[in-house]
């Protein structure tokens, strides 16, 4: 086990996640014809939140938040960032699949401690949304596993370097992943669990001060994980962290354009969308890759 990588990987995740948050706000502002905040605005917000007085709602409220943060950090350790992959297991992809569920569960647990009616609506929406995007997500992962005959993320990256990017050999799975990307990130067309205008920002309604800061940091990690997984599965990973972050930036900006111009779905519209188009495309990709047989 690589100790330096275990420290370096979360640091990269944090810095890049916060940088993406700042970039997100600037680019959203420019698309909306506004000037926008400075790039450092998320850091300013987090500094302020850590210096604020915060209200806790008991032990579960605090522990659930730490559980989700820990879940995100541990997931990050299994994802290769360029050549940095501290926990390089033979079954990395399956581990990531299970560990990615810890973060929303922790947030749901923590929110439940807050006992606000808006939170319970937010939790039910978040869980339903997770249920709706997990179906195409599992199909996509299955397609990738069948095509490359491996469940190790590091091996996947190496195989793609030999045979070309995954998005070219598995175009349908790549498109399906890109379609569920906003749902996995919880941004605009699928911003259902945190709708500020409908349910007073839902899940995070009771968070204040340092708890809200931890919530934002967890969000930054999650954003990094989901996009990094896309880059590793379909854009061939990278040999070094810098190229990797550059590829992530491209995916992130492409996703941001969808986020900036679309209004929010209703709950049943979101589920109907996730269970039709991404699921059908992913299923077609799975069947094609099963018929054609895998690589190697």
């Amino acid at each position, binding site marked *: 086990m690589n100790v330096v990588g275990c420290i370096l990987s979360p640091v990269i995740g944090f810095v890049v996640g916060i940088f993406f948050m700042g970039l997100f*706000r600037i680019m959203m*502002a420019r698309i*909306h*014809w*506004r*000037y*926008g*905040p*400075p790039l450092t*605005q998320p850091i*300013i*917000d987090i*500094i*302020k939140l850590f*210096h*604020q*007085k*915060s*209200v806790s709602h008991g032990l579960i409220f605090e522990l659930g938040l730490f559980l989700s943060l820990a879940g995100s950090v541990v997931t990050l350790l299994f994802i290769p960032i360029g050549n940095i992959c501290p926990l390089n297991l033979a079954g990395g992809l399956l581990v990531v699949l299970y560990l990615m569920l810890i973060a929303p569960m922790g947030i749901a647990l923590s929110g439940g401690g807050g006992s606000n009616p808006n939170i319970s609506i937010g939790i039910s929406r978040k869980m339903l949304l997770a249920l709706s995007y997990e179906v195409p997500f599992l199909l996509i992962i299955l397609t990738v596993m069948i095509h490359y005959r491996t469940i190790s993320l590091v091996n996947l990256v190496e195989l793609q370097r030999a045979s070309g990017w995954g998005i070219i050999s598995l175009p349908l799975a790549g498109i399906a992943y890109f379609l569920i990307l906003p749902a996995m990130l919880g941004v605009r067309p699928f911003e259902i669990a945190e709708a*500020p*205008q409908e349910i*007073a*920002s839902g899940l*995070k*309604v*009771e*968070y*204040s*001060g340092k708890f*809200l800061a931890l919530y934002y940091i967890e969000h930054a990690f999650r954003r990094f994980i989901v996009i990094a997984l896309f880059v590793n599965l379909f854009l061939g990973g990278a040999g070094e962290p810098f190229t990797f972050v550059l590829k992530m930036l491209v995916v992130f900006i492409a996703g941001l354009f969808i986020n900036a111009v679309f209004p929010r779905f209703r709950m049943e519209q979101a589920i109907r969308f996730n269970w039709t188009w991404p699921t059908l495309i992913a299923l077609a990709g799975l069947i094609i890759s099963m018929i054609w047989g895998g690589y190697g």
Partner: protein
Amino acid sequence: MDRNVLTKWLKQPQKMGNKYSLWAIYFCTGCGIIEVPPVITSRWDAERFGVIPVATPRQANLFLITGYVSLKTLKAIIRTYEQMPEPKYTVGFGSCPINGGMYWDSYNTIKHLDKYIPIDGWIAGCMPRPEAIFIAVTHLWTLIDKEMANGYKKYRAKYQYYRENQEKALGKLAWPPLFKTDNGNE
């Protein structure tokens, strides 16, 4: 604006953070709702000053009360103010919260809002232009810099005065005192 001066950030991170990250909760009691949306959207973009709207008082540190305050909304205003985490700043927007404005002889509105919760700054006018919010924000920066925006400390220190005024206007309050008062339990 000293947002990019790194030495100040290292010296006083709390003060600088409070200055440049004002998350506002708008209490649009009657009028004033027309002036706020252009401020936060693309016409006058408040986000370039770090001011963004939030949906819940738990996350806000700037409280903007626009328009007249009736007795019924005063109750909600007090509860919202008490839920906000410290440090918190309040700004009264329009002439009605200052002295009653055109409702100066109404039986059901509050004439002086600063008797019930501490106010850090006023924006006079009926209605003020949306740009006035930015002038208020920059003035608030100056006040935070000189540590004069200490309404939340005043609320803590003189809680009994405020609580008495609130009870005089609203009768018996349904919630217990936030801080210790002399003539009651906590």
